[in-house]
């Protein structure tokens, strides 16, 4: 048995014990790092107990990054995934927000669109993969289309809910001051719904990042999902599989942080305090 597992456990304990005494900002970094290190220790321990050869140890995974960087396809695959997510997400926002505003504001619009949206929404974007490939072939087009579908529904539904939740007193204020048409939308409807629209964007981005990996595993020839599949098929390189999974997780965190920056604007902060 290697000493790696006990060492990792020791490091974890040190991180947690020292972390507790640190200033708040440092604690927020050290405590989760400590918990993650416990996870690594358990992972190493499990590998030692089962003596697995196929499944990589934490050390194997770390070494796999050297291979990934050497092969220079990692950057290309990251860019391919991000490209599809970015364009699909932008298309989904550019259509989902207007549709949500319409269905939320006009009662007839709601009656006409809500059942359709609610009926299409539960269909997993994964189920659309065959159709996406049929329409767009293997490549970016299918990926962008799938991400468009993944983000359109959460964004449309969130926007619709945001508009329908505008408080009566704000509607009446708007009426009282003679706001109507475009001005009403710009000054009241859109800003009132904005906090919920941003929450919907966050949810959509999360779903998009989940779906793109699955889509690339099945129907594309580049991207992080394809990299995972490729690593398994080319001689069962599970160290590369796990290394890529960790990269996917880290990029997911960064994407969420990016969308969350929208919550910091003065115009929307009111929507995130307890009401």
């Amino acid at each position, binding site marked *: 048995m290697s000493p790696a597992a006990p060492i990792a456990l020791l490091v974890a304990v040190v991180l947690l014990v020292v972390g507790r005494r640190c200033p708040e900002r440092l604690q927020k970094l050290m405590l989760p790092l400590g918990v993650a290190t416990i996870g690594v220790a358990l992972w190493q321990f499990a590998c030692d107990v089962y003596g697995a050869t196929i499944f990589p140890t934490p050390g194997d995974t770390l070494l796999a990054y050297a291979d990934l960087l050497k092969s220079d396809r990692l950057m290309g695959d990251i860019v391919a995934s991000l490209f599809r997510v970015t364009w699909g997400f932008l298309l989904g926002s550019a259509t989902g927000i207007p549709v949500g505003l319409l269905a939320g504001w006009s009662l007839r619009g709601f009656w006409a669109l809500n059942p359709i949206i609610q009926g299409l929404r539960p269909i997993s974007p994964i189920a659309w993969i065959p159709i996406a490939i049929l329409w767009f072939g293997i490549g970016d087009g299918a990926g962008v289309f799938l991400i468009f579908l993944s983000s359109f529904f959460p964004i449309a539904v969130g926007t619709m809910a945001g508009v329908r939740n505008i408080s009566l007193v704000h509607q009446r204020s708007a009426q*009282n001051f003679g706001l109507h048409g475009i001005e009403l939308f710009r000054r009241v409807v859109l800003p009132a719904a904005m906090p919920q629209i941003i929450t919907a964007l966050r949810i959509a981005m999360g779903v998009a990042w989940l779906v793109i990996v699955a889509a690339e595993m099945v129907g594309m020839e580049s991207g992080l999902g394809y990299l995972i599949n490729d690593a398994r098929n080319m001689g069962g390189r599970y160290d590369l599989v796990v290394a890529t999974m960790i990269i996917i997780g880290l990029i997911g965190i960064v994407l969420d942080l990016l969308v969350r920056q929208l919550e910091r604007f003065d*115009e929307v902060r009111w929507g995130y305090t307890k009401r």
Partner: protein
Amino acid sequence: MGIHQAVNSRHDDPAGHDAPDKVVVCGVSKAFAKGGGELAVLEAVDLTVQDGQFVCLLGPSGCGKSTLLNIIGGFERPTRGSVTIDGEEVARPDPRRVFVFQEYGIFPWASVWDNVALGLRHMKDKAAQSEIVQRYVDLVGLGGFERTYPMELSGGMKQRVEVARALAVSPDVIYMDEPFGALDSLTRLQMRSELIRIWQAEKKTILFVTHDVDESIQLAERIVVFTARPGRIRDVVTVDLPHPRDLGSAEYGRVKNHLYELLGVSHTI
């Protein structure tokens, strides 16, 4: 019209007003559909308010006084009867008459400045616009908070923003629906005295809904007392006390006793 004028001559004038009639409520009733039947909220309300008067609508919760204010403000339609302002029938809300809500009608997504400027958004002369906004921000004591957003303000400050937003459009009439109800009692007292100061300076007609007997005596020239649902006007009481009003005076106590009697509640606990 004959009946209405009779009501008019009975209730009005003792305060020495010879100003023209501003708001005339004539035979207004309101019923809501409720489980197949009807729920009568207001019944045959007649009321005349003169230009520049401060009138309180006082009554127990659920007596329809807020409904009446919403009808006068144009947000709801009466089942029967009509409301006219300056001889024109009210059919919808109008920017010349501004509502101040209890639950903060100002926009949380806009700064204090932008909220107060809402009603002035079509002014071509931007310099004149800023001058007016600044004047009313200062008038309600929020100078220095122009760039602040409502979530950073206390309840009392938010309500001041709403009062400034209303005053900035120089309205003929201001409707206030329990505007200080959500504030603590000290802030409430302070807001009342500021409102009186502003009313004396600006001479607007104010219709003010409250269920608080003291609040109505501190503020109003005339107090319209409602019965419980369905709301009818029980009586109109004139408060002939000069501002600033002495809350401990004998006359204050006399009016208070009279109001308690009209409301049918005992004055001792």
